[in-house]
């Protein structure tokens, strides 16, 4: 199942689409929440590498407003629990990701995003 941890890494790669191709907009999303084992050390380590604004906005698109707009200076356990939930517990089963630049639609089916391009779209 694809979660926001992966969404934070994906960019559009359609022919000629090289700017404003991240993050992909979420559309028609069906989410299932599934518990995942909490690992505070992992989250602390990963935190600086997160594209924060993209994550916060994607979470909000899925109805979760627990994350602050700015990455906090001091990180406490409550924050890490919210981050854990957003990154690793909201499974996107169905929907699509749309490129804000070229409009290309990457479908998500049975929890697996399809990043394949049609032949005419390959750069």
């Amino acid at each position, binding site marked *: 199942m694809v979660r926001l941890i992966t969404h934070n890494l994906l960019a559009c790669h359609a022919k000629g689409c090289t700017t404003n191709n991240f993050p992909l907009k979420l559309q028609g999303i069906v989410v299932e929440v*599934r518990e995942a084992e909490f690992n505070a050390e992992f989250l602390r380590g*990963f935190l600086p590498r997160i594209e924060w604004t993209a994550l916060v906005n994607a979470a909000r698109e899925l109805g979760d407003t627990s994350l602050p707009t700015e990455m906090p200076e001091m990180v406490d356990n409550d924050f890490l629990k919210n981050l854990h939930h957003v990154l690793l517990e909201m499974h996107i089963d169905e929907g699509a990701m749309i490129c804000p630049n070229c409009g290309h639609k990457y479908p998500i089916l049975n929890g697996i995003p399809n990043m394949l391009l049609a032949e005419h779209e390959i750069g």
Partner: protein
Amino acid sequence: MAPAVTATAVDDVDPQIYEDRHVHAVYDEIAPHFSSTRYKPWPIIAQFLASLPTGWVGLDSGTGNGKYLPLPTDRPGSVWTVGLDRSRNLLSIARTAGGNNVIREVVWGDVLERSWRDGAFDYAISIATIHHLATWERRKVAVQRLIQAISPTHGRALIYVWAVEQDGLSKRSIPRDQVLQTCGQDVFVPWVVTQGQPQPKSAVHTSTAPVFKRYYHMFTKGELTSLVHEAAKELELTVGAKGDAEGKRGIEIVRDGWERSNYYVELRRWECR
């Protein structure tokens, strides 16, 4: 008698069509059987994954059945590896690799595409994948995609491909007549679906068991390292250690070698401020 590995050549054919026919279609057909034979992590790869700091997120480009996604086994959940593969059927298996009700992150895509935000990953592995690409150019592009996907300041990558030089334990024997010193060898390696396994419709049926032919480019000594050099050069990255090399950014080949019928290269990206 087991069907033999046969030499082949990729000529006058669109490499994408060649790969669709001789790699992608085959893996989708044999996925569950193939997966059942791929379960033991190779030591150098397991060691690489075990050496990663907690919090790192990486890419397994050509994850297949997701064998490496649960590693390292002694620190589960300390790093996250996202699996990319071209075979939808193998990805369905990779999704739950390692069991224990843990769901893996998997993406259906092509290793030649730039599907990722540049520098997004801390590490990337490419295990037994790029040897399925039909031209030197495509194999070079695949290496470039790995380099582009990892952090320019600290990204690490490990690439493993099949070698022409097979060891005694290997079940494969590679025809040697057409081996060119620098160019490796294109072959079809048979996959036999044995009794009791799901019988796919499209295999060539022999009197004993259906056989699929998979395309591989077997690498020769030095070829993978050369490929990495060329890939980096084209990306305007110096090849060498950070202190010694000229240039503002580059890759260091941490180690390269041959292990159990495979060539491997481990590299690290660096940047000067």
